[in-house]
Every structure is written in structure tokens, then in C-alpha cells.
């Protein structure tokens, strides 16, 4: 058969003719021809010509009866499922055919028929399907495959409408607890229950007791890889440990699964262990090592999986004051052959891992990347160095030196980026200007992009008393005020006014008035115009009425007040972290956004209260086996409080966990992500936790 003929658009009548032509002569060749015609239908459905193919419904039904070929049956069933959304009246006629297939005795046909029944949302089908599902699941002699198909059919039925769900749910629970049932069936029953709870508004939360959880973990060796992954996934949150020792016990039980080859099993096991760590009072050093090791070894998987793992590593590094992972930075050195998205993520991790003691190594790497072929990569590396400067106070000099060294490359995009970055550096360390001011100013003519221009203007204004030729430099920007983009116009306007208030001389006054004039008379943008008017009124009010309350000093205070200091915030909101950690391995973990923020219908996951739940997620400590010390836990707590204090003080935060190497300046929309959105509908335990943390500073 040539694919060309099958994969092209046909009219319904053409196919019909072909089907009937085959019917006339009853021998083998015509059967093959018929099959070919049916394949054309499927191909056309794939290509999206659904309405045309819908006309063939009666013909398909006719051939359903004639042919006893499994392939033909498959195509017919496929056709039926594809037509499900049309809800044509033909479905009534098709029902007996589907049922007769079910009763034909072959296991494969039974499964096929069952799936078709479940996939068609027509009432009679649903009713029929419910009956079959109940009988199949209750009968112990049915084959494993059929039972599994029935379980998934049950899931579909429950998701259609949950008025009748109770009976099905009851059966599922019974299967779950039936010790004589086959392992695969029980595992899948658990998964189906878990899914029901996730996706529908089932009244009752799925909660498993110690014995069931134990039992399910015992089953793991007998299950295939996908089933194992699902069991581990379903156990998370469903089982709530009541004591510390229970949690320890299950961590121990689950850890061997980290040695599976299937990534999905590992990540789900990982998730379960991380979940359980919320219920223990300490962790052993060897466990941390095992967890880290299993994550690192996943980095050798295909790029898509590697990407996922890297994102999850970020999550785990961000989430806690004392990360559960101890990994060597060298694993995250960028390889030449890595796809860009992996390079990017690795850069981010390196940035997060940077501390005083490994800084030299990391800076060396960043230097490599900054001169990389890829321009984006190089820019991001520079951004990261800039942010590191702000983050690590003690090593700021090294970082600044690296930035200055990179300036010597004199590549255009590197200069842009470095100039942009220096604005933040200088805001954080105003005294560092001695190191870099001279050198930076040399590049005044290079800066092209709005951001770097804005940054350069700010630097010139801020340090004008150190620059003898500041007016000349400033002129190079202000002379084509009208040609600049809005963002730069704003900074020129602000800077001109600031220059005047700081140093009121005839030249600065002339400059200032010039800019104010252009801004009020020649610019169309109302925001810019209004701001210029405000400045103008302020200045003239201050000059006219010497004796009034609005003196020059007050104006200076208003226009050129002290800027709030900036700091880096690499912490996520604990509540979001909690939710994300329960979503390890999901899309949410890639975007590092809570599930319900992006997709409202998903239920947010949260830890269920139990006597064993740790009130503070960093309260447990990592110990070597046998030796326990309490000092570390105390320091952990106090740092937590410090963090809190910072977030409520006017210190300006740069929430850079998202993309540290990009756009540090846009603070507003970033902030939304991490700002604790207070819902009162929170669980009492969570609320208590929040209050207990806030109280000392209220």
C-alpha cells in the first residue's frame, strides 16, 4: 500500500464507493480493498476532516458485522470513539455491535469494547459500561488486562458525572484492600482513587492508613515500572504519617526505589521521600547523600529529562534554608553540546549555589560563558555576575573586577549588559564607584539599548561630582532627547532635574529648563508631560516663595531622596515551596509556579496536619548516624526570622528565583509571584504557622 493514497483527502462518497465495490465480490482481494478503504477513513480523521467522514457512519456499521478481522474491528472502534463528540443517533444502532464484540469471548475484543463504551459519553453507553465494570471488577477470575481496562473505564465514568460515583468508589476501595487481588490491579485501583480525588470534587479525601501504605510499598517489586511510579505518586499526601518513627520507616522503605532506571519512578520516589521529611525530626547524612546522588545521576538522561531534573534541583535549592541536596557545583558546568535551555538552567543553578567559598570557581566559569558564542548566554552570565555582586557582600570586589575585566573585550553586547548591571551594583555599594567609574564612563558612546542608556545616565548623575566632564557626557544623551524611547526620556528628565537641584548653576539650570520645555511642549506622551509639569511647578514654587514651607531643601528631598537599599531574595514563599515540593516532577515544578495560579481548576496540594508534622520546615536537622546536636537547628531558626523581618521592612527585594539572569529591574510583576496571598480558608495548622512566625515583629 502506498501511503500517498491513504493520506490524502477523500470525499465520503468516494470511500463509500470503494467499500461497496469490495462488497460485491466476496473474495480475499476485496477484503483487503475494504480494509484499505477503512484505513483511508482513519487517515482522513487524523487530518481533521471529521464532518465529511461522519457521513460514513451507516457504512462503517455495516462492515462491522461482516468482517471478523481484528484489524477491521479496531478501525471501527476507533471510528466510533472519534465520532463520540458528534453524538449522532447512529450510536443507538452501534451499541448492540459493541456489546456483541464484548461477548465474543476474546480478551482483546472485550477490552476494545469496554474502552469504546467508556469513551462515548452517551447515556446508554455509560449505563451499559457501569454494569460491565461492576461485574468485571467483582469477578475474581477475570484476566488482569481486562480488569485493568475496567478500572480505567471506572475512572472515566466517575469523571463524567459523579452522582452515581459512590458505588464505583466503593468497589474500588474494596479492590484496594483485597489482599487476594493481583498486585497490578490493586496498584491501579489506588491510582484511580488518587486521580478521582485530584480531578473531581469527591467529598471524601483519600486517606490511607499505615497498613495500606505498607502493603502498597510491599507490592512495588511485583509491579512494572509505570505502576510503581503511580503507586509512589498516589501515596504522596494520601498517606499521612502519625508519628516520626512511621515517617522514618517509610523513608527507609522507599529509598531503594531511587535506584530504578526509570526516571519517573525515581522522581516519584523522591517526591514521596521529600514529602515524608516534613514529618520527621531529623535526617541522616547518608540519606541526603543518597538523594543528591540519585538526582545527579539523572543528569545523564536525554535533554528533556535533564531539563526537568535541573528545574527540580532549583526548586529544592530554593525551597529551604538548608537544602536537602548537597551537590558539587562541577556537575552544573555548561557543556558545549548542551541545548540552550539546559545551559540556561545550569547557569541559574550555579548562581544559586554560589557561596563565598566556591565563588572563585564559579566566577571563572561565568567568565567562560560571558565570552561564549551564544549572545544570549553571554548576557545572562554577565547578569548573573552582577546579581552575585549584589548578593555576596564579602566578595563584591572580585565580582566587580571580573565585570571590569570583561569590559575590555569591547564586544558591543557585553558592554551593554555590564553597564546595565552596574546600576544595581552601585546602588548596593555606593562606595565602590572608585573602582569602576572612570572605566565605565569611557563607554558612554557605546551604550545603545534603553536599559543600558538609562543605567549610564543614572550613573553619571549620581556621581557627577567625581566627573569633571559630566555635563558634556550628559549632553550626549540629552541632545537627542526627542529621539529617545520613552524609558530613556524619563531618565533624562529625572536626571536633568536632579542635576539642577544638586548643583544649581546657570548651566544646569539652562539644561534643566531646556529638557522641561521639550518634555512639556514637544512630547506627546501624557505621562512624561505630566511628570515634567510636576517637576516644573515644584521647582518654581520653591524658588518663588522663599518663606513658605516648601523650601529648596524639601524639593531636593522629594526629587532626590535617598533610595532604599536593595537586596537579593532567593527565597520562595514557604507556602508555595510546600506546594511545589508536593508537585515534584510535574509541569508546575518546571515553571516554579503554584498549580492553581496558572490553572485554577487544579486543587492546590498541602500538607495534612498530624502530630508528627513539623511546624517549621527547617526545624529538622541533618545528622550523622547516632550523633545529634541541637546547635544547627537553632541557627536555622534565627535565620528564618531574619528573612521574615527583611520581607516586611522597606528593603527593596529583587525576586530573582525565576530567571536570575534576566530582567532584575522589573520588580513589580515579579513580586506578585512570591507575595504571600492570604487566604483565610487555609488550614488551621498553616495559619498557626504563619502567625507564629510573624508575631515577634508584629
Amino acid at each position, binding site marked *: 500500500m502506498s501511503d500517498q493514497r491513504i493520506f490524502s483527502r477523500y470525499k465520503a462518497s468516494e470511500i463509500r464507493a470503494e467499500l461497496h465495490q469490495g462488497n460485491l465480490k466476496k473474495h480475499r482481494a476485496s477484503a483487503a480493498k475494504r480494509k484499505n478503504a477503512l484505513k483511508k477513513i482513519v487517515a482522513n480523521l487524523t487530518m481533521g476532516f471529521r464532518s465529511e467522514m461522519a457521513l460514513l457512519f451507516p457504512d462503517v456499521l455495516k462492515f462491522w458485522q461482516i468482517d471478523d478481522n481484528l484489524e477491521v474491528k479496531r478501525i471501527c472502534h476507533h471510528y466510533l470513539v472519534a465520532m*463520540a463528540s458528534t453524538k449522532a443517533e447512529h450510536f443507538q444502532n452501534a451499541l448492540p455491535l459493541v456489546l456483541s464484540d464484548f461477548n465474543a469471548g*476474546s480478551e*482483546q475484543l472485550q477490552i476494545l469494547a469496554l474502552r469504546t463504551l467508556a469513551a462515548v459519553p452517551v447515556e446508554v453507553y455509560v449505563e451499559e459500561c457501569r454494569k460491565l465494570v461492576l461485574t468485571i471488577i467483582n469477578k475474581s477470575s477475570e484476566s488482569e488486562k481486562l480488569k485493568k*481496562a475496567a478500572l480505567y473505564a471506572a475512572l472515566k465514568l466517575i469523571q463524567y458525572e459523579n452522582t452515581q460515583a459512590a458505588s464505583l468508589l466503593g468497589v474500588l476501595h474494596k479492590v484496594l484492600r483485597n489482599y487476594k487481588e493481583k498486585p497490578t490491579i490493586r496498584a491501579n485501583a489506588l491510582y484511580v482513587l488518587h486521580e478521582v480525588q485530584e480531578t473531581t470534587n469527591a467529598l471524601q479525601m483519600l486517606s490511607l492508613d499505615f497498613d495500606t501504605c505498607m502493603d502498597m510499598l510491599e507490592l512495588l517489586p511485583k509491579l512494572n515500572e509505570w505502576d510503581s511510579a503511580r503507586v509512589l505518586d498516589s501515596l504522596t499526601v494520601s498517606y499521612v504519617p502519625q508519628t516520626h518513627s512511621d515517617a522514618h520507616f517509610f523513608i527507609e522503605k522507599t529509598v531503594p526505589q*531511587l535506584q530504578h532506571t526509570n526516571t519517573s519512578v525515581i522522581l*516519584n520516589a523522591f517526591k514521596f521521600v521529600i514529602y515524608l521529611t516534613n514529618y520527621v525530626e531529623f535526617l541522616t*547524612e547518608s540519606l541526603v547523600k543518597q538523594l543528591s546522588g540519585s538526582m545527579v545521576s539523572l543528569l545523564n538522561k536525554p535533554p528533556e529529562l535533564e531539563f526537568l531534573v535541573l528545574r527540580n534541583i532549583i526548586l529544592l535549592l530554593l525551597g529551604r534554608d538548608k537544602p536537602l541536596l548537597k551537590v558539587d557545583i562541577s556537575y552544573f558546568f555548561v557543556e*558545549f*553540546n548542551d541545548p540552550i535551555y539546559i545551559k540556561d538552567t545550569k547557569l541559574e543553578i550555579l548562581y544559586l549555589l554560589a557561596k563565598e567559598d566556591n565563588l572563585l570557581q564559579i566566577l571563572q566559569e561565568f567568565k567562560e560563558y560571558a565570552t561564549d*558564542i551564544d549572545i544570549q548566554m553571554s548576557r545572562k552570565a554577565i547578569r548573573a555576575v552582577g546579581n552575585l555582586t549584589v548578593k555576596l557582600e564579602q566578595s563584591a570586589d572580585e565580582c566587580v573586577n571580573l565585570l571590569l575585566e570583561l569590559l575590555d573585550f569591547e564586544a558591543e553586547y557585553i558592554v551593554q549588559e555590564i553597564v546595565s548591571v552596574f546600576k544595581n551594583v552601585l546602588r548596593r555599594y555606593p562606595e565602590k564607584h572608585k573602582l569602576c567609574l572612570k572605566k565605565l564612563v569611557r563607554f558612554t558612546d557605546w551604550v545603545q539599548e534603553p536599559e543600558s542608556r538609562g543605567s549610564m545616565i543614572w550613573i553619571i548623575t549620581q556621581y557627577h561630582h567625581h566627573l569633571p566632564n559630566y555635563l558634556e557626557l550628559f549632553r550626549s544623551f540629552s541632545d537627542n532627547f526627542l529621539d529617545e524611547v520613552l524609558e530613556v526620556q524619563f531618565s533624562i528628565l529625572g536626571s536633568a532635574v536632579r542635576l539642577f537641584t544638586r548643583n544649581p548653576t546657570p548651566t544646569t539650570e539652562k539644561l534643566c529648563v531646556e529638557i522641561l520645555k521639550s518634555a512639556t511642549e514637544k512630547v506627546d506622551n501624557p505621562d512624561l508631560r505630566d511628570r515634567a509639569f510636576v517637576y516644573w511647578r515644584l521647582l518654581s514654587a520653591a524658588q518663588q516663595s522663599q518663606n513658605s514651607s516648601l523650601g529648596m531643601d524639601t524639593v531636593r528631598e522629594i526629587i532626590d531622596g535617598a533610595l532604599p537599599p536593595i537586596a537579593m531574595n532567593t527565597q520562595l514563599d514557604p507556602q508555595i515551596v510546600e506546594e511545589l515540593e508536593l508537585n515534584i516532577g510535574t509541569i508546575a515544578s518546571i515553571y516554579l509556579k503554584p498549580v492553581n495560579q496558572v490553572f485554577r481548576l487544579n486543587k492546590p496540594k498541602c500538607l495534612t496536619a498530624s502530630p508528627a508534622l513539623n511546624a517549621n520546615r527547617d526545624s529538622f536537622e541533618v545528622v550523622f548516624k547516632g550523633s545529634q546536636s541541637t546547635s544547627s537547628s537553632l541557627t536555622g531558626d534565627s535565620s528564618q526570622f531574619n528573612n521574615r523581618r527583611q520581607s516586611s521592612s522597606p528593603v527593596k527585594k529583587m525576586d530573582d528565583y525565576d530567571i536570575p539572569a534576566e530582567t532584575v529591574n522589573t520588580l513589580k510583576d515579579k513580586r506578585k509571584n512570591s507575595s504571600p496571598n492570604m487566604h483565610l480558608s487555609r488550614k488551621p495548622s498553616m495559619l498557626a504557622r504563619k502567625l507564629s512566625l510573624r508575631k515577634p515583629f508584629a
Partner: protein
Amino acid sequence: MTSCIYFCDNKGKTILSRRYRDDIPPSAIEKFPSLLLEAEHESSIIPPCLTHNGIQYLFIQHNDIYILTMSSSLSVNVAQVFSFLYKLVDVLAEYVKAVEEESIRDNFVIIYELLDEMMDYGVPQITETKMLKQYITQKSFKLIKSAKKSKNVVRPPSELTKSVSWRPEGIVYKKNEAFLDVVESINMLISANGQVLRSEILGKVKVKSHLSGMPDLKLGLNDKGIFTSGDSGSKAEANPSKKANIELEDLKFHQCVRLSKFENEKIITFIPPDGDFELMNYRLSLPIKPLIWCDTKIQVHSQSRIEIHCRAKAQIKKKSTANNVEILIPVPEDADSPKFRYSHGSLKYVPEKSAILWRIKSFNGGKEYSFAAQLGLPSMTDADVPRVKRPIQVKFQIPYFTTSGIQVRYLKVHEPKLQYQSYPWVRYITESGDDYTIRTA
């Protein structure tokens, strides 16, 4: 979990699709090509997940096709999706050899069957090829009514036979053999001055099993520190001076290995699937000396010529030999008229990669070879082109040798019913991994 699977061509147009759930409109796929284009605009390589309109597009690339799944929920388990897609490609390859646009179109009926068996309602099911072959045959066949059923009756209940989901019963071989391949790939990142920035050994043990019945295998490895592990924590305690480079020894096993048994007794026991599979892999981050070291001096006389001096040394045992050594040295893109002087191997200029390729068929341990090359550079250059830094890439294979020193002591085959004689075979090889690179100054 996932709502559907689409096979798309390299433009993102659908070749074949299978929908498992109805929560995604059929029109969603039409957005995919433009999403791809958009992402490509932003950066040259597209990330494997895209979002549009609340729908998550997750895909992998294979040959000239995209294999795509969509989901409307953020809590979809991506780990599962990606591992499944890779598995799917593997399985399809068994049926259609090369998985590409044409073979998919040619075999779409079988692929539909496979997709039906491998996933139910968007949840992965059986993915073991040998098991799938029971249900699906390449040719279509006439249905023999209730044949399966009668077989079911004859067969004793599965609990008794201890059947496992990855191995069908009743396999018979005339000669019972098991082949073990221990393959170690070395990944290394070396700075221009010879400092090893990162090194790791990725090992795997591949098995080809031609064994009858339901054999129970036991694998013994030399416990040279590596496999007595589990007490790695205590080892680190013993010599805290080594904390900078802790050896992370993690093993990953195929689903057939009894993990709890390994955890408790450190014995690797398993009932193998039939045919080829990867039994285990491991990773070691020992600090190792570069096996093939090459010291390269590149002198650029801008606007006239570039001179390259390179010395390569095989830092392995005298008895060992590295085969098929390939050293790829980058040169500027606009270089021309190469002149070479060399003693061993073959040297050639590969303009399409902008590099010089030095091939040495066999490189004995301890030997040192060198070459000198000179290439012309155009006298007129575009001054703005940023200097490109690409690393030197090295490829090699060293047979009969493992860097970590791992050795197979024994492979015991025990088939309780058939009690046959069996022959295990073992081979060792060390090769360069995907990333064995030396940075240029």
C-alpha cells in the same frame, strides 16, 4: 495524565494522533507549528515544554519528527511523560526500525494498536516489547475465537508461576547463553592549562539474554569498594580530608532487579526480560587523569595565518590500546589552504565543522604523537565578529579495560524447572562519553 499523543513532522503538522481524553479541543494541535516558530525566534533551540492558552505542550524530537503530548493540567507528571515518550520511540523502533515520518505513515495501523496497548486513558501501561509482541503482530490476522481463553484455562493461576510483567512464559532456546557488556563512558571537562574541571565515569551493564524458561540470575561483581557501598557516609567520615570530591556512587537498576534485596543484602538478583536490556548503570565521580590528553597550542596571526601544534598522549596502561581515536580541533570559520605535518594517523580539514580532524586508528598506551598545522586566514576580516571559543572534542574506545576497575565475578543462572547448563559471556570497554572536551585558551 496526558490527554493525547501526536506524531508531527518537522514543521509541527500532524502525521498521526491518538486522543485519550476529551479535555483538550482538537483544534489545539493547530497552534503547535506557530508555537514552535515563535519559540525558535526567541532562541535557536526550543525548550521541550510550551504553554499556550492553558494547554501544556510537551514534546521530544526524534529524527525528523516531534512526538507531542498535551495536557490541560499543570500537575501532569512530566517525568512520566518524557520517560514514556522515549520508551515509545524505543518500542516503535523495534517494529519499524527507523522511527521517522515515512515509517510512521506506512505503519499507522500498527502504531494505533501499540498506542492502545501502551496507554490507557493517558496512563502508561505495558512498554516491554516482548510482552507487547504477544498482543500485537506485525501482520493483521484472522481472529480465532476464544483461542486465548482456552489457553487461559490451561494456564495455572499466575500467582503460582510467579509470573513477572516483563517476561512471558514458555521461552525456549537451544543454547542457553547470556552476554554481558560492561561499558564505561568517560565525561571530562579539561581547562586549557590541563586542569581537570570535571570528570565522571558513566558505566552500564548491558545484557543480552538467550535463556529458556524463567531463570533466576545472580550477578557477582568484584567488591572493590564500589559495591560494598551503602556505608558511603561512614567512609566520608573516616577521611574527612576528601570532602571536596566525594564519590557519589549511585546505581540504577532495571525494573527486574529486586531492589529491596539489593538494599539489604547487596546481592543483585533478577529474572531477566528476554533479549537485550540494560541491567544497571552507575556513576562514579572519581578524579581521573585524562585518558587521552592533548596539549594544543594555537597561535593566531590575525589576517594572515593560524598555527596549531598539538601533542596527544595516551595515558593508559602499556598493554592497552585506544582505538578509533578522533580529535576534533576547532579553527576559525574562514580559514583555508591547510598545510599539515604529522607522523601518525590521518589528518584532515573539515570545513563544514570548521575544524581539523585527527584520526588515529590505534593508539598504544604510553605513546605520544604530535602534529603541526598551518592554515591561512583571509586578509580582510569583519572586525565585529566576536571571537568564537569552541572546545576540542575527543573520541576514543579502549577495549578490555574499565576505568573504575569493575569486574564481573560470576553470573549464576538458576532455572528451577529446566535446570539447564548456561554460558555467560563478558566483555569490557571504556569509551569517551558525549562530553569529553578540552577547552581552548
